[in-house]
């Protein structure tokens, strides 16, 4: 169990992390999610031990790993790390990158050459680089480089695996595959994993627990479904799966949107914090678009994005801009169209799932 205790980190006068508290259980898979520049990489580097916190401590099973005074160096920890910038060694081939931790990591292969080579081959195959084993980093494409970084980190099966956007340069297919491999690894080795990503879908799909960060602070820590269905802050609601924050008035379980005061919406599982601030968070797929008629909410389509299995509309409704996803089989609208908007009645969704 790793405990991050009130850790702050400053770069010069800029505070990148504000008194972070976090617990990483043994064998837990934690995704760290947050917008660009929110401090994800910084958190990871602190966990790895590349630098010490400006304040606070990081401890593991009651021994202090890092404090302002002392930092246990990374080589003495049983970790693996995928660097956001890959950090490949220009003088080593792909195979050598994998061989390196297998020879020096605390979990190194001790059984001899053949075993070592077998492990190298296995890991390379796993990331799909077996054909490129003798290439140097300068001869690889972006995604290939990232896979080398991934292979190097996972090869020694570290106890704590820190991954800084390890799949950002991969295509969806490969990414799914890698995700599955990582999950398999996780199941098999029971390693704790901290997985930084900016992709909320990835975080939702992969983690036991998601940490949402914003501007150097933790906004919410929760399992994926709780996070998605019961976001506690506006930020989490909008960031994790697009959410439209509809303003209005809460009267008990009933919500009257400002924009369309004739209507009453029912509470489908909205967090209390939203109720006090008079907001109803609506997911893009919870809205329904139709041809405009005189009554009900009206908006103007300002942007249309085709997504294959769905169409994403950006609609201006009064002062607000809403995102609405519609199936490709529904009626199509174009930029400039005036549309009517209503809330789908899907009483089952949030309520039941939270209680799952």
């Amino acid at each position, binding site marked *: 169990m790793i405990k991050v205790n009130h850790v702050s980190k400053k770069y010069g006068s800029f505070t990148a992390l504000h008194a972070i508290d976090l617990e990483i259980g043994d064998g837990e898979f934690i995704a760290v999610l947050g917008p660009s520049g929110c401090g994800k990489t910084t958190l990871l580097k602190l966990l790895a031990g590349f630098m010490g916190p400006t304040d606070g401590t990081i401890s593991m099973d009651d021994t202090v790993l890092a404090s302002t005074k002392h*930092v246990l160096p990374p080589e*003495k920890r049983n970790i693996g790390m995928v660097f956001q910038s890959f*950090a490949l*060694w220009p*003088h080593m081939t792909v195979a050598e990158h994998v061989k390196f931790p297998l020879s020096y990591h605390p979990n190194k292969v001790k059984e001899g050459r053949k075993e070592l080579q077998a492990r190298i081959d296995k890991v390379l195959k796993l990331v799909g680089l077996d054909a490129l084993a003798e290439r140097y980093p300068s001869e690889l494409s972006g995604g290939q480089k990232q896979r080398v970084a991934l292979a*190097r*980190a996972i090869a020694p099966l570290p106890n704590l695996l820190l991954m800084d956007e390890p799949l950002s340069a991969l295509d969806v297919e490969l990414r799914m595959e890698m995700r599955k491999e990582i999950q398999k690894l996780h199941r098999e080795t029971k390693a704790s994993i901290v997985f930084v990503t900016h992709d909320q879908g990835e975080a939702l799909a992969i983690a036991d627990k998601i940490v949402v960060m914003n501007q150097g602070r933790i906004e919410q820590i929760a399992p994926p479904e709780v996070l998605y269905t019961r976001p506690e802050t506006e930020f989490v609601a909008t960031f994790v799966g697009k959410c439209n924050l509809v303003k209005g008035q809460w009267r008990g379980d009933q919500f009257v949107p400002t924009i369309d005061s004739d209507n009453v919406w029912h509470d489908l599982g909205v967090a209390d914090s939203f109720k006090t601030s008079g907001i109803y968070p609506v997911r893009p797929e919870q809205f329904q678009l139709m041809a405009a008629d005189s009554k009900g909410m009206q908006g103007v389509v300002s942007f249309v994005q085709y997504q294959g299995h769905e169409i994403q509309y950006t609609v201006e409704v009064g002062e607000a801009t809403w995102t609405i996803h519609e199936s490709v089989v529904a009626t199509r609208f174009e930029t400039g169209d005036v549309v009517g908007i209503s809330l789908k009645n899907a009483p089952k969704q949030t309520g039941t799932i939270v209680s799952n």
Partner: protein
Amino acid sequence: MTAKQPIDGERKKRDSSFSLFFQRNNLYKIIGLIVIFIFFLLPVLRLIWLSFVNDGSVTMQYYTEVLREPATWKTVKNTLIVVGGSTILALVLGILFSWLVAYVQLSGKRAMQLFIFLPFVIPSYITTLAWTQFFSASGPVTAMLSWLPGELAAPNLYSMSGIILLLGISHYPLVYLFTVNVFRKIPRELEEAAATSGLSKQRTFWKVVLPLALPGIASGGLIAFLSNLDNFGIPAFLGTPANIRVLSTYIYEQVVGFGPSAFSRAAVLSVILGLIALLGTVLQWFLLRRSRVNETNRSDSTPRIYLTAGKQKLVEALLWIFLLVTSLMPLITMGALSLISAYGVPFKLENLSLRNYEYVFMTDVKPMSALSNSLQLALFTMIVCLVLGTAMAYLRFKYPDWSTKTAELFMTIPYALPGTVFALCMIFMWLEPVPGWNPNIYGTVWILFIAYVTRFLVLQVRGSYTAFLQIDPSMEEAARTSGAAGWVKWRRILLPLLFPGILSGALLVFLMALTELTVSSLLWSSGSETVGVVIFGYEQAGYSTYSTAFSTVLVLGILLGGALFMLLGKLWDRKVLKNK
């Protein structure tokens, strides 16, 4: 990706974990500094102390005296002009050559590189002799100019500009050596990004390439600057007839000036010289202030600029002409002198013989043992400097705080002082490090060894530091998360990445130690004579023909070694790195 680190202040903050280690071990820091202080600064302080005492009482008398003399100020002014001018010349030539070699497609680059080193390894008395003959009334330049219309006279080398020219030409290889690897490591994409931003090749050079090469340029420039500052041979040879004094020659005059105050006055002047050296170092820090680390690249020796066949030929021709004049001409002059029996006999077949070689290598026993001594000394000095210098550079790179900066300054001083002065300092220090206790270092080969290490360590520090500036810290971080610490991290990750830069430093230390003269001439002892001492001895005895014979063999040996080395490098490239 550009890497995480600014070079100075910010790194410290970011790497606070390491300074944290250090805080706990603040003691080590202090101890380290004390050791460095003892080895590098204390000897000099013992000299400086002389500038404050007169008959056992502390006095500022020498300072008021020396500083009041107009001669001092004139000398300082001359020094600044000469050193400034020659450093600029060395920088221009050094940057130009390193850029051409690293960037432009030219044939015969390896041979070119060898020739670039020549002016640096040819003893400066030979260089001056060759150049003065080249420009003399009976020399080829005058002859050529007489063919041209107009009253053109060959430029007078016995002048400020002559000194600047020769110093610049002798020391541009230093800039070259430090810069060429840096150029090779600049990621191509940074230039491509400039090109898509609309910058012409020329602008890209000024705005992107040059700033990125700053670590090398600053180091090379600093070393060239210090070398120009402490050089004695060239200003003495060319400046004496022209009545031009610079600090190094003036200090020498004081040292040999007998009199009770000789050393004291020399010490005052040395302080001035030291201040100028420190100024140069600080200026160099200032230059490096904005330098940032690149993405770590493998050094890339495939050309980036292709010229049309005609232009390439033209550039090659110009380069070779320059190299022939600056490198081959002194070499040939030297070779020619070594073949004749005496100065002034016409260079005709019947006057040529290998008699001088025979004397030097068959009759006289000293040269061979000197060669072996020097080789050993140079080798050990190189190895020790390699380890200590690289370690120091690492500390300097990782913890750029007051302590490492101070340490670097300490290490700069021994190199900046004129050799004679430095040798005197070594005597003060090592004869009886503690009054009444003679550890028997002085008077043995060990004093030479210590002197060489002390004097040349800064070369390795700069060489390695420059190489470190090319390494993105994430390289090391990745090694550490892979479990590699200590020696493994160095052997497998850092050293291979640092290799070319470290090698430049080591090469410099080796060559400097191999051909060292002024320090050795005061510190050698029976049985530990060095190459420089033997050459100096021949020179002083008026046997210039012998000394040229010996020098010729030495330089040819170095050339051969260099050629072998490059051949090995080529093989290494082919076999091990499978470079296309």
